């Protein structure tokens, strides 16, 4: 099986879908000839023609509106928002339109669109190239929100997203594009090639939407994480030596409540990790759900380890980023109770 990094895996997912399904189109800012600022659509315009893979004006709202209209026609468009930080101009079309069309039309119309957006920090992008706005989508019923943490899942989930008949917001943790970042910027970067989940089938396969993965089984405490934070959590577990179970949520909504509840009911402890700001972040929902599902088994307060409630400050990337040190501190606090 070939080894792929995350960029290649995502590219392969779109390649496979473009080849299988004439109704799949890709578009967005710089995605056509150039192949995307992160090269995720590299080569696809050349292979499938510029009617299927093309550049758009810089109008995120217009990009999503096009996708919605194309979806109503019957296509399966895949739109790229260049950075998740720039998804806000598209917010109305996503929230008021994409998410509502099936419901409001009595299922006469639906919206089989995928909106890809690189998210998260770790590349010194400052406050407008580092955001993790997933919680702004998890609150919106009608949207499916996904964030993969490795090449295998990225490809399988992106294929599932494209094949899904409802709108999917697909966040790609940009810090993971080229390697499984464990939160130690000072250490040499490891390439994906050394990671088992970089073995990615060339052809079509799906990773199911709504199913979490156990990134590391354990008994002492459950860590709920997604995206980059899965790797950071694993590093923190290794560094603290705590026998944590690390769950990679993969899909945030609809979340795999069974996997979460089963684990926390067993471990009795839970640490939730995300990069987004804390207040009203998706961690809040996870925490609320965990205590609703597992109240009588909880032996310690659920901990949230998150980005601070500030914009992502350029110079303080690593003081902002919830790295293994902070996750480890959270783990220790939860174990100490």
């Amino acid at each position, binding site marked *: 099986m070939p080894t792929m990094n995350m960029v290649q895996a995502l590219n392969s997912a779109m390649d496979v879908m473009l080849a299988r399904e004439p109704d799949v189109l890709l578009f967005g800012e710089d995605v056509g000839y150039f192949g995307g600022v992160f090269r995720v659509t590299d080569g696809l315009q050349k292979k499938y023609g510029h009617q299927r893979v093309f550049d758009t004006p810089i109008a995120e709202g217009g990009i999503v509106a096009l996708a919605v209209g194309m979806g*109503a026609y019957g296509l399966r468009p895949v739109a790229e928002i260049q950075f998740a930080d720039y998804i806000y*101009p598209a917010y109305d*079309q996503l929230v008021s339109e994409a998410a509502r069309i*099936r419901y*409001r039309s009595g299922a006469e119309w639906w919206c089989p669109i995928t909106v890809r957006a690189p998210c998260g920090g770790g590349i010194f992008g400052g406050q407008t190239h580092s955001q993790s706005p997933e919680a702004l989508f998890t609150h919106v019923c009608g949207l499916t929100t996904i964030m993969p943490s490795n090449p295998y899942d990225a490809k399988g989930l992106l294929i599932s997203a494209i094949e899904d008949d409802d709108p999917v917001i697909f966040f790609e943790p940009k810090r993971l594009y080229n390697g499984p970042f464990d939160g130690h910027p000072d250490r040499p970067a490891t390439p994906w090639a050394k990671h088992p989940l970089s073995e990615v089938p060339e052809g079509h396969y799906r990773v199911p939407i709504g199913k979490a993965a156990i990134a590391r089984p354990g008994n002492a405490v459950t860590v709920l994480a997604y995206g980059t934070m899965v790797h950071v959590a694993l590093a923190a577990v290794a560094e603290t030596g705590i026998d944590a179970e690390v769950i990679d949520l993969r899909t945030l909504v609809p979340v795999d409540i069974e996997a979460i509840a089963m684990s926390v009911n067993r471990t009795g402890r839970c640490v939730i990790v995300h990069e987004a700001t804390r207040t009203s972040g998706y961690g809040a929902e996870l925490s609320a759900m965990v205590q609703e599902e597992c109240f009588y088994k909880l032996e310690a307060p659920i901990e949230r380890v998150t980005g601070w409630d500030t914009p992502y400050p350029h110079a303080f990337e690593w003081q902002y980023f919830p790295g293994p040190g902070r996750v480890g501190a959270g783990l220790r606090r939860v174990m100490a109770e």
Partner: protein
Amino acid sequence: MADHPALQLHIPEPKHRPGEAADFSHLRLPRAGSVERPPITTSAYDMRELAYQLIRVLDDDGRAVGPWIPALDAATLRRGLRAMLLTRAYDERMQRMQRQGKTSFYMKCTGEEAVAVAQAFAFDRSDMFFPTYRQQGLLIARDWPILDMMCQVYSNSADRLKGRQLPVMYSSREAGFFSISGNLGTQISQAVGWAMASAYKGDTRIASGWIGDGATAEPDFHYALTLASVYHAPVVLNVVNNQWAISCYQGIAGGDESTFASRGIGYGIPALRVDGNDFLAVHAVTRWAAERARSNLGSTLIELFTYRAGAHSSSDDPSRYRPEGESEKWPLGDPVTRLKQHLIVLGKWSEAQHGELLAAVEAEVREAGRRAEELGTLNHGPLPDVHTMFEDVLKEVPWNLARQRRQLDEERGT
């Protein structure tokens, strides 16, 4: 700088307010028949003056004049008249029913019937519409049953939208009428996406989108013009300038500074401005634009210059913000009266026939109304099954909604 006068903030105001006499004498209305009709291959640049004109076909005597006379036979015109009358009668009844408490809300299109009806007639039946809430005439012109529309207005047991939408937010896939959004403007850019999809597939169907004068300030209008221009999308974009956006006259949307049609110029989109109360002119202009789109020549922007004769909605009272009688003074008349007059001038219609037709459409509305009320009204039901509330959020009901559906039943037990 000391040598400059103090700046001043300009806030536009309509010419007249309640308590003053309505007056439209400032309007520049070209004579019927006076505006040229360029070939559909004309570039946006070359025809840019048309964005400042007003295409009119029917003169004051009801005669069709000039280069824009559409090729419509009398039978078609009578069908148009009927659809407009039916639209008006339907509006009257539903508004009355709303007042009687049978539903929560209603929106009429009185005075603007020609816009939707004449435009619907100018498209193929399979072309796709992305309307606003004031184009019920599109459905009626496509012979969509008013009974079905009434069931939506009543959110009743037969409402295909399962009671989910505010009254008048229709949807009909079969009629090529996209689910109306309560959020202004969003449909117009979606129309471009649909049109691009059709072009991508090598289809022959084109799309059309509508937006109000007020809503042109929303981003989607800009997206629609930009995207339609860039990709030469086969879409007809319509601004229905009915002079008002709730209480704001069209100057608040920029209408005092330039015509809404002229917005197209800077995007390189041909723009036409038409007397929206002139059935023939509306049809001709729309047909021109549809032909253009269908011939792979791209998009056209049409401004339909009309007047909102009624209130904005059943929640509105225009006497609070516009002069009394403004509606009657609208210099472009009433679309129904004008088409009727034209047919009479043609010798294809009479007052007597008109009276019969009116009675017929009123009876049709009454009968449909009776049946709709049997199927339920918002105040007295029957409504759709309440459990449908949890369906269609996604294709499959996710676990949280399955739980919430159960919870609803459990708690209704309490």
